[in-house]
């Protein structure tokens, strides 16, 4: 089922949580809403589910305007961060709940509900736990039950709100891979919210990066990582270093020296240079480079992170050096970013 969010705005007590958000989700896609807390990602998810009503704008399921549909009519599967299982029901009853509450004309028989529940338990790899109560399961198992329960109603869209947020790192990684497999097997259109970029980049077909109630960028993992379109995305996804620079005559300048980076399309004026600490080349002699003195150096797994003071200590950037590189010990290092982007000051 395609989902189209069109110019949606949501205010809580006049405070805008979402400002004019539009988003097209293709059928069968696995989409991640990624952003820091307060970016509006959960609000967007809850609007799609019908758990909140938009202040303005429309949400389409396929061609149908779902905005005025009740939660019950929307037929969405929603998985909560803290599972929200019914603790007085067995695992099988939890999964069958969505079928049991259907109006009698559309309700499957009891045997059919039971069959469907154990089928879904097989799918989420919890066969044999039908009779358990949620309190008797581990966090990871509970979240699997919650997912099975959401899928039991054959939802048009599957929505997951920080589904792995309450689990420890090990279980998280495991469930991440497993969710991808489930998605590929069932083909549900799936939207999940996360603040963990690793999770979003690894799992999703497309990532929607959000900040302060707006969508900053929509793209595949490669697109948002390699070509971030805003200072926020550059700073939020992956590691980055930034430096205040000046653009003049299509060249990037630090203080009064050009650093050998051409920026022909940018207007003259104050700007900020962004680059990845590992995407640099070290230079022996400096004619057009960024140069600085080593202020701190620390070993990070297979590489060495060096903090450089640029321009007499007013600015610091981080770059990555091979462990054995002599520059790590030298007090002065010259380098030039290989992949970078300059954003004019006002864009921030």
């Amino acid at each position, binding site marked *: 089922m395609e989902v189209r969010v069109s110019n949606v705005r949501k205010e809580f007590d006049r405070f805008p949580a979402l400002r004019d958000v539009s988003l097209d989700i293709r059928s069968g896609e696995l989409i991640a809403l990624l952003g820091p807390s307060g970016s509006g990602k959960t609000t967007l998810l809850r609007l799609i589910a019908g758990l909140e009503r938009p202040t303005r704008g429309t949400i389409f399921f396929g061609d149908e305007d779902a905005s005025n549909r009740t*939660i019950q009519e*929307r037929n969405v599967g*929603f998985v909560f961060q803290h599972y929200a*299982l019914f603790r007085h029901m067995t695992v099988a009853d939890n999964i069958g709940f*969505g079928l049991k*509450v259907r109006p009698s004309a559309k309700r499957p028989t009891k045997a059919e509900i039971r069959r469907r529940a154990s089928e879904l338990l097989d799918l989420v790899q919890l066969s044999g736990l039908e009779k358990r109560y949620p309190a008797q399961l581990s966090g990871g198992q509970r979240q699997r039950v919650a997912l099975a329960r*959401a899928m039991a109603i054959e939802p048009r869209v599957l929505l997951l709100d920080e589904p792995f947020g309450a689990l420890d790192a090990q279980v998280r990684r495991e469930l991440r891979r497993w969710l991808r497999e489930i998605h590929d097997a069932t083909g549900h259109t799936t939207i999940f919210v996360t603040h963990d970029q690793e999770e979003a980049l690894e799992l999703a077909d497309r990532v929607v990066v959000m900040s302060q109630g707006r969508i900053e960028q929509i793209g595949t993992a490669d697109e948002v990582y390699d070509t971030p379109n805003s200072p926020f995305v550059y700073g939020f996804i992956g590691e980055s270093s930034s430096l205040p620079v000046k653009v003049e005559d299509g060249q990037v300048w630090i203080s009064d020296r050009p650093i050998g980076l051409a920026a022909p399309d940018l207007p003259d004026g104050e700007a900020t240079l962004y680059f990845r600490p590992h995407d640099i080349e070290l230079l022996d002699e400096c004619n057009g480079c960024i140069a600085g003195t080593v202020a701190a150096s620390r070993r990070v797994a297979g590489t060495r992170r060096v903090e450089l003071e640029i321009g007499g200590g007013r600015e610091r950037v981080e770059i990555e050096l091979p462990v054995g590189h002599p520059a790590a010990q030298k007090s002065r290092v010259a380098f030039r970013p290989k992949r970078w982007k300059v954003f004019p000051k006002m864009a921030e």
Partner: protein
Amino acid sequence: MTSAPAKAGWRFRQPSVIPGFGLTLGFSLAYLTLIILIPLSGLVWRSASLGWTDFWAIATDRRTVKALEISFGTAFIAAAVNVVFGTIVAWVLVRYRFPGRRVIDAMVDLPFALPTAVAGIALTTLYSPKGWMGSLLAPLGIKVAYTPLGIVIALIFIGLPFVVRTVQPIIEEIDKEVEEAAATLGANRFQTIFLVLFPGLAPAVITGFALAFARGVGEYGSVIFIAGNLPYISEIAPLLIVIRLEEYDYAAATAIATIMLALSFLMLLVINLIQSRTRKRYG
């Protein structure tokens, strides 16, 4: 871990490394013995001096049986009514914000604080055939004061806070997400409340019922004013005990008391068993 081999049956659970287990357990046992066990065993001891045949004669006396029936019957009905309406009151107090909510919340505790005799007199005045409420009910042929119905009303009044105060915190704990989950799964409001929310409240409701029931069985002050105290009709067991005491028939008084004790113990035991079963599942 202890190195002692695990034995079946009763065993002390290893106390934590923080000291105080011996002291607190000793204190608890001594305290409970002093406050509860000694008086109760004195009661049983005294009635045992009666001899079995005499005891049986008092126990099966029609007046005693009727009084016990009335005491336990009215307490049961009152507790059942309180479960329904107490839960609704607790629900409203937790779920909705309205002017005067705090005042009403405080009012729930009044039956705790009010001297029961005052409550009894107030209710009697209201429900007597010439009273405010009684005069409205009289044309309908409903007599409240001086009937078992009056006893039930007094016990409802007395028992309400027990249900409200036990259920209220559990309703506060209900996770909004559970309701939302039920809604996304297609459950309407009615189904959400009766299939999801209320079953989750069951343990608290049972506790509230047990407390209100136990309180109702033992209630004396408020009931004797409204009940009319007609033997075989509206005479409660605690009153019968007092009557026997006033006749200096201590043996009979303790015998009735012992029967009440046994019955109360039995009912609380059953309630606790039901409770531990529900707790074990999803506590």
